[in-house]
């Protein structure tokens, strides 16, 4: 019975989503307050019914209702409850429902916190979000119903893919989706502005916090995915340029560009049409990512259920949304650009360069992701474009980006006098070059041009990010300190520095070695001794495993004992590697069991990964920076200052 209630709720949610789209948009056009008033109510109702549907599916998983096809395919009696819940979004149908649920939640949040916006504008935003809900609800109901029954019911389920039975991956999709879907708010703001034809600095001020929240969740989601791939896949890498990873990375890059471009639009009223285009692009790339992952057009290790009908549906929806938005853009944007000028040496110039470089990076990733498809269609051959290409291609825009980043932060809006500007950078530049040589040479004992560039860039970002917060700490009492939004920016950039340092060092000095090991035996790698003390059998709830007890010694001193496992899941029969990791801020020591070579002999992959934690820590710091930035006073004041028609005055610093 509950699954039918779930299905029925989805249909009701669809009806409400249609009301939420049609009435407010017409109302806003006619200036009819009653019709516009429907927006918030319909959005809340839609959210409630989607929540009921989501609850029903979750309950079906917890209650082991194997008469529901989706549950029977992706759960099992012995599956721990945590994974029964995360199995809800473990495959196509349920993750689509999660997507719809998050979209509805974003819409309700917009409805709740938009009381400071002009009524017509809020109605249009909610109407556009409603249109997106309609598309996804139709997609779920017509092609991917999670509540389809299985008759006769199965006695036990087929179990969740063992790769997904992991706490990290349980929360990776929700975080990622909150980010992906969050860009729909910026998109809706852009469409609403284009429909009404008004785009002022206040528009950017409203859009900024929403975009930043989406961006920070996407940052966390991507970092979590990378971390998961590192410890779960057993390869020890942290980024593989897999098509699905790229699908989440492209919206992130454009989202980052959007955040910076919004800053210019808010402070100076410039880059308006460009900001609109980025807002459309960020969400379009989220949709493109969904399409790539779910249509099966690109083969990937993530391979979601692939089905051409679903592919066509998303592609049609993508076409309607993106083409519609771009037609509106081609029509409205020309009248929106302002002709305020800015000096060659000004913050505007740096943010423009930031945008250009991020867009170039996105384009390169897009080309790398789609070119196997182009080649296949042209010649019939399957090729794959691997990390070596991406690593080189991606560095080309990234190196100038990180160098310019340090400068842009200390450049004034409008125009900057060059003599005082050069003085600011003297010390950071010296420190950066010095440490850029010292870190690789003194600590790790080797040096190359790329290493110096990477380390110097990282130090450069860190030092230049610290200038403003440190000055603020040392300021005289009674003078104004740093604003939250500027502090957030500095912290996010600090995170970027941490990431660059970690990525540089681990790429250059990481050691990976595959060797054979028997109990009682030892091997050596990166100066450490790995001793297998014991090999034993262990039982999990739905798997059995062979576990090795590996003692890691440095000059005879015990550094750590790690317990890598090779798991055999009982239902799906697939072997899984659980790496044993001694995690540290300075380095990770990583041991994974490979294949059984002989009776008691195992191939073992041992790895030494210096500073790899800085990569994820960096992402965490970036997200924290975003959080601090949106807590800035002016966004909170914004909610209260209803319909005050002053335009945002340009402040001296962001």
């Amino acid at each position, binding site marked *: 019975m509950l699954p039918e209630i779930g299905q029925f709720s989805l249909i009701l949610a669809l009806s409400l989503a249609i009301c939420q789209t049609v009435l407010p948009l017409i109302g806003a056009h006619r200036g009819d307050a009653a019709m516009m008033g429907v927006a918030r109510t319909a959005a809340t109702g839609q959210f409630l019914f989607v929540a009921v549907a989501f609850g029903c599916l979750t309950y079906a998983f917890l209650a082991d209702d194997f008469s529901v096809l989706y549950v029977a395919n992706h759960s099992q009696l012995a599956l721990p409850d945590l994974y029964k819940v995360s199995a809800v979004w473990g495959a196509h149908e349920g993750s689509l429902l999660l997507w719809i649920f998050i979209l509805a939640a974003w819409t309700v949040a917009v409805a709740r916190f938009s009381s400071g916006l002009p009524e017509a504008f809020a109605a249009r935003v909610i109407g556009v979000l409603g249109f997106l809900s309609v598309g996804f609800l139709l997609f779920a109901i017509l092609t991917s119903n999670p509540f389809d029954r299985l008759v006769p019911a199965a006695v036990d389920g087929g179990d969740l893919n063992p790769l997904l039975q992991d706490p990290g991956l349980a929360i990776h999709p929700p975080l990622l989706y909150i980010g992906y879907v969050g860009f729909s708010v910026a998109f809706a703001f852009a469409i609403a502005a284009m429909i009404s034809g008004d785009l002022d600095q206040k528009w950017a001020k409203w859009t900024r916090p929403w975009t930043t929240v989406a961006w920070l969740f996407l940052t966390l989601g991507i970092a979590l995915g990378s971390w998961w791939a590192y410890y779960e896949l057993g390869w020890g890498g942290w980024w593989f340029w897999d098509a699905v990873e790229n699908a989440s990375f492209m919206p992130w890059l454009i989202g980052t560009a959007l955040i910076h471009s919004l800053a210019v639009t808010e402070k100076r009223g410039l880059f308006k049409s460009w900001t609109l285009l980025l807002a459309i692009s960020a969400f379009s790339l989220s949709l493109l990512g969904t399409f790539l992952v779910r249509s099966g057009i690109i083969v990937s290790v993530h391979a979601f259920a692939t089905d*051409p009908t679903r592919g066509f549906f998303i*592609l049609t929806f993508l076409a309607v949304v*993106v083409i519609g938005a*771009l037609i509106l853009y*081609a029509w409205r*944007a020309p009248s929106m650009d302002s002709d305020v000028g800015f000096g060659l040496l000004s913050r505007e110039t740096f943010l423009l360069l930031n945008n250009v470089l991020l867009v170039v990076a996105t384009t390169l990733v897009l080309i790398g992701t789609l070119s196997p*498809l182009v080649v296949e269609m042209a010649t019939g051959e399957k090729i794959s474009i691997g990390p070596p290409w991406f690593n080189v291609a991606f560095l080309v825009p990234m190196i100038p980006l990180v160098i310019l980043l340090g400068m842009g932060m200390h450049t004034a809006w409008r125009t900057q006098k060059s003599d005082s500007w050069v003085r600011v950078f003297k010390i950071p530049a010296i420190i950066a070059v010095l440490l850029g040589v010292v870190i690789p040479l003194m600590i790790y004992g080797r040096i190359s041009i790329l290493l110096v560039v990477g380390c110097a860039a990282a130090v450069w970002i860190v030092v230049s990010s610290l200038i403003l917060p440190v000055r603020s700490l040392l300021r005289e009492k009674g003078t104004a300190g740093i604003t939250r939004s500027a502090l957030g920016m500095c912290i996010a950039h600090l995170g970027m520095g941490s990431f660059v340092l970690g990525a540089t060092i681990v790429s250059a000095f990481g050691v990976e070695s595959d060797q054979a090991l028997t109990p009682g035996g030892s091997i050596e790698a990166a100066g450490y001794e790995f001793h297998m003390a014991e090999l034993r059998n262990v039982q999990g709830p739905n798997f059995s495993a062979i576990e090795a007890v590996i003692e890691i010694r440095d000059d005879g001193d015990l550094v750590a004992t790690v317990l890598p496992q090779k798991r055999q899941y009982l239902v799906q*029969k697939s072997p899984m590697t659980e790496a044993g990791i001694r995690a540290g801020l300075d380095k990770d020591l990583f041991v994974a069991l490979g294949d059984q070579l002989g009776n008691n002999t195992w191939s073992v992959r041992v790895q030494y990964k210096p500073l790899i934690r800085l990569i994820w820590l960096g992402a965490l710091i970036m997200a924290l920076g975003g959080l601090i930035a949106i807590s800035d006073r002016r966004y909170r004041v914004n909610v209260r200052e209803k319909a005050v028609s002053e335009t945002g005055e340009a402040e001296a610093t962001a």
Partner: protein
Amino acid sequence: MNRFVWPLIAVAGLLVFLVMGLRHGDPRALPSPFIGKPAPEFELPTLKIPEVSIGTETFAGDYALVNVWATWCVMCRAEHPFLLELAAARAIPIYGINWRDSRVEAIRWLDDLGDPYLASAYDADGRVGIDWGVYGAPETFLVDPEGTVIYKHLGPLDPVIWQREFVARMSGGGQAE
């Protein structure tokens, strides 16, 4: 034409391209250049009796299934019961190519799980696998009575795939892809 139209044109182009990509067919169907051509010649010792050899001519005269398998391959274990079913139903002669495996373990596997194969060729170094364009085990080739490869399936066989891809090609005269 103003510059604001360019994004529209670029995206329209991308969408046309994606539609073509979607129509292009199943992305998992890795193309095999051997389809529609005579099965690659080979001569290998059989798994169980090294003195006896097996080759392309062994298949001649009837439709035959050539299944590439190995004991280290998890999915081979998954498809094994279905191969046994096919063998029991005498649906088609099944030959194995035991690929990059240990002879002892492979024989033990057949003893433990049952042997659906009329014979298995023992391809220890994977040389014949290269000639046949094997990407990974399990892989199954359908060879027609003239010795032409008419279909290749990647991954484990199951009843649905068997009916849809194999039986259809055998009775329908086997249209080469």
